[in-house]
């Protein structure tokens, strides 16, 4: 099967040609399979946002290529434009991109740019609004009258409405309260089950990534430091800490228990999972 997004030897420099030239991403090779959820984690300045801006051709690589659904997106203008619709990129704090008079019109901005028929646009807007949790009565309001969390949802719906094959979300939960965070992560999970689309989430919150991602890609200093299932990656606690990242607190406790010889699982990322794991342990777990 052709991968959803494939990146080959991707290098992008900032301040190119000056003495301050630095590689924001350096020789990255990454293959995102169709239907998977990939988490990209990295410290601030590790190149996460630069990397994803290549997926729909907003940035042009200095070296290497980006292949979306089997097509090199920089082949010509057509392929570049198509990549914008195939890969839906939702930036950090997307609520600052809202501009239309009504939420409905704003969500319809993407599909209208795709020159779709009216009925199709309407269908997409309503589906996306529902999926992103935008209340029906808010659709006719001005986006500037919504609360922060509602704006965020409306903006994400504006990307979902293009029905991209790959949805890329940069720090979707940044600045939300814990409840808002949880809702948003659940929303992403539901979106994925409902559409079967590929989802790429960029974050520095290990908790958020752990609960949704099939695979985790850790970026450090413009390069891929680790790539694997959350279990594989999070078991390398020490290395992650050296990169300025942290495994979830609850995972740390379980790693510690494991090291002390208790027969507990290592892939515990949330408190709910921890409770279940402890129950299991109490039932049958024996001290080694």
């Amino acid at each position, binding site marked *: 099967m052709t991968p959803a997004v494939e990146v080959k030897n991707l290098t992008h420099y900032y301040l190119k040609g000056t003495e301050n030239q630095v590689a924001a991403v350096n020789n990255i090779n990454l293959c995102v399979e169709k239907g998977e959820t990939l988490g990209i984690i990295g410290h601030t300045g590790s190149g996460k946002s630069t990397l994803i801006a290549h997926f729909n051709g907003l940035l042009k690589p200095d070296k290497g290529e980006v292949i979306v659904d089997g097509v090199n997106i920089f082949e010509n203008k057509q392929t570049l434009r198509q990549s914008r619709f195939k890969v839906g990129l939702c*930036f950090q704090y997307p609520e600052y991109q809202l501009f239309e008079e009504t939420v409905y019109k704003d969500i319809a*901005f993407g599909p209208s740019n795709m020159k779709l028929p009216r009925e199709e646009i309407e269908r997409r807007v309503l589906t996306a609004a529902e999926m992103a949790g935008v209340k029906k009565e808010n659709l006719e309001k001005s986006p500037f009258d919504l609360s922060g969390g509602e704006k965020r949802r409306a903006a994400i719906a504006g*990307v979902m409405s293009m029905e991209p094959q790959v949805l890329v979300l940069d720090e979707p939960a940044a600045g939300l309260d814990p409840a808002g965070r949880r809702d948003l992560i659940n929303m992403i999970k539901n979106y994925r089950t409902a559409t079967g689309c590929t989802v790429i989430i960029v974050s520095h919150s290990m908790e958020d990534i752990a609960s949704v991602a099939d695979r985790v890609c850790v970026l450090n200093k413009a390069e891929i430091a680790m790539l694997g299932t959350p279990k594989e990656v999070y078991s390398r606690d020490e290395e992650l800490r050296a990169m300025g990242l942290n495994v979830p607190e609850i995972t740390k406790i379980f790693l510690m228990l494991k090291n002390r010889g208790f027969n507990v699982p290592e892939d515990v990322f949330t408190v709910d999972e921890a409770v279940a794991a402890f129950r299991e342990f109490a039932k049958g777990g024996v001290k080694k």
Partner: protein
Amino acid sequence: MISDISIGQYYTGNSFLHKMDARMKFVLIFALLVFVFLCKSFFSLALMAAFTVFAVLISRIPLKMILKSIKPLVIIILFTALLNIFYTTGGRTYFEWHSIKLTEKGVNTAIFMAVRILVLVVISSLLTYTTTPTMLTDAIERLLSPLSVFHIKVHTLAMMMTLALRFIPTLIEETQRIMNAQKARGAELETGGLIARSKALVPVFVPLMVSSFRRAYELAFAMTCRCYTGGEGRTRMKQMKLKPRDYTAAAFAAALLAGVLVLNHFFKAVI
């Protein structure tokens, strides 16, 4: 590209010019520009040009930077030179063809004008190369402070200028971010005719306006929280004080003026 716009071209340094009091520098550079216009003969202009070269040397600004500030004006300089060559007539005629006439006076005026513009540009660019925008607005505030007699709030104006300068890079960054976000939703910002393009800017300008107002309110809150009440009774951390070097510079400028006037008097005027 949008990120190439550079406002305030301060070049970090520690030269005599950098260390001069911004007010004195502002006044003297303005005076020098006037002196350039006072020059009437080649000799007085040559004195000003020599002084400009001297000032560039002591400012230790690389020649590359100076050339960069001249570059956008090359066309204007050439254009004025061409106009002067053919429209000013007098003196010996070098060349004549139909109505086109190349005369001694024409050539002289053309050269004189070109050098004059060059000197003007380089001198004024020295001000912005050696003074940070904040220092510059501070200087303007102090120089305009007599206007407060007419109930003009000079401090407020200067603060507005400082803030505007401070937020230019921020807004450029923000514009870039919003443009990317809308491009990601398929907005075509770089193609189409004039109407299509200006229409395409709506999705960029509306969010930019909204966020500018948000930033302005936030900043106003933050300033109020730190008890900012405007200019009255406000003191400065860095007091501006005229030092011996500033007086030296002023004396130098006065000598220059004398030189220009003397040379004007003894040599033939070009214009």
